């Protein structure tokens, strides 16, 4: 059963449409990356999947259920977590509190999941009582992912998880995302660092001007000469 299916999505903010009939799917356990030049509508597409963008036409299906019209808080309950690109932590709250907020809708014991996250991100365990606002960018990104994982989602949406990070941290972040994915969690992410992202993902979509251009496996896209040119036009 396809995990996430986006079909013929058209929409945007307010008046102007940014997306024009985009199709995309994520199979269970798959890692899918969306790349494309700035302004292509990558982040908008991801937000649309999460109910944060006005959708005029098309549908978003999650495990064959139509979630097109649901609000973000309802979509969370379906098993999708979303990590925004910026402002993705609660700055005045501690690491531990941030994680708790990630699990707000859960009423069962969240301790085991929190322990798993601390083992996976040892840095967060060290800083569990530190307020998020005082942490470095890389640590915040870990925390943001940790918060989203607290729900034990089936699908994780990541919006440019490596933006603003130093090279060494970029490598680590991709490594961690791959490990999360290996555990069976579907991943859909938007990335600027297209080469690295394509190298780790199963499949990739290239978006330009709010439309699908190419989709293929990561290695194939990486080898595709047209893809590089798409970023620089011509």
């Amino acid at each position: 059963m396809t995990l996430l299916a986006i079909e013929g999505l058209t929409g945007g903010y307010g008046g102007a449409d940014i997306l024009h009939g985009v199709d995309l799917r994520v199979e269970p356990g798959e890692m899918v990356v969306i790349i494309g030049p700035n302004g292509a509508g990558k982040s908008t597409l991801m937000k649309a999947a999460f109910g944060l963008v006005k959708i005029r036409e098309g549908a978003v299906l999650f495990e064959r259920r139509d979630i097109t019209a649901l609000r973000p808080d309802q979509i969370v309950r379906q098993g999708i977590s979303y990590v925004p690109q910026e402002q993705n932590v609660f700055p005045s709250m501690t690491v531990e509190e941030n994680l708790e907020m990630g699990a707000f809708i859960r009423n069962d014991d969240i301790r085991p999941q929190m322990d798993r996250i601390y083992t996976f991100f040892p840095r967060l365990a060290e800083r569990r009582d530190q307020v998020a606002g005082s942490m470095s960018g890389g640590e915040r990104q870990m925390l943001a992912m940790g918060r989203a994982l607290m729900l034990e989602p089936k699908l994780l949406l990541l919006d440019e998880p490596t933006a603003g990070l130093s090279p060494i941290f970029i490598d680590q972040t991709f490594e961690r995302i791959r490990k999360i994915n290996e555990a069976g969690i579907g991943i859909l992410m938007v990335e600027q660092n297209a080469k690295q992202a394509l190298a780790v993902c199963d499949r990739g979509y290239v978006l330009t001007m709010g439309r699908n251009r190419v989709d293929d496996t990561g290695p194939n896209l990486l080898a595709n000469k047209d893809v590089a040119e798409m970023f620089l036009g011509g």
Partner: protein
Amino acid sequence: MATDLLQLAIYGVVSGSILTLGAIGVSLIYGILRFAHFAHGDLMAVGAYFAFSLVAGLGFPLWASAPFAVAGTALVAVAIDQTVYRRLRRVSPIILLISSFGIAIALRSVVQLIWGPHNQVYASGIQLPWRVGDIVIKPDHVWIVLGAIVLVTALHLFLTRTKMGKAMRAMSDNMDLALVSGIPSERVIVVTWAVGGGMAAVAGIFLGMDTRLHPVMGWSLLLPVFAAAILGGIGRPYGAIAGGMVIGLAMEMSTVVIDPTYKPAVAFALMVLMLIVRPQGLFKGNP
């Protein structure tokens, strides 16, 4: 002179305690709903009068009527939010502010309608003060300060230990992220009003103990309450504690040099000074 100052400092801590309780509510509401709630002073008056009804009407002791007054005021605050503010939230904070100004006036009229325009007291007769050297301390003052400490501690525990309290902080920190985390914003807003209203009721009761009850009692405290909230960084409940104490002490201590009538002017001057020098407050407030 030294004893005079110490005596004034005691009064300052007492009124600082009252201001703190009011300013915390203002700050909580601002943090989550992003508007300056001008009816907060009058919510304080409503709380004070609820308690008065139980004391004067049913003969309850004041401490026993306080919980009912707190619950009643919290209910009033939530009811106002659900009937009026909720409908205006999507419009703009400016409209909410104007609306709350109207609510302030309406609440005061209701108080006047039900309880009359005159001064009232919880207990007549003179309280026997304690004397420590030349310092005079009224038992009521001790209760006020202790009560404020207990409440602030309780609020602190609520905000740091309970899921709902944390959700309130989360919403005030980053509204969008709270939404995508699945935090139910409407429920948090209702709780915010209940907590803010409850704290206001206690502040009103304390104010009534300290002085007297009067329909305008809350409105006259609105300026110092906001001064305290702004001083502490509006939207920061913890800042409100410091802000409340600074304003309370400054207002009382200033009476050494200026006419006591102008106490509000002292709060005003401090607030204006703050706005010029450091608009974000002592502790960085919400932008």
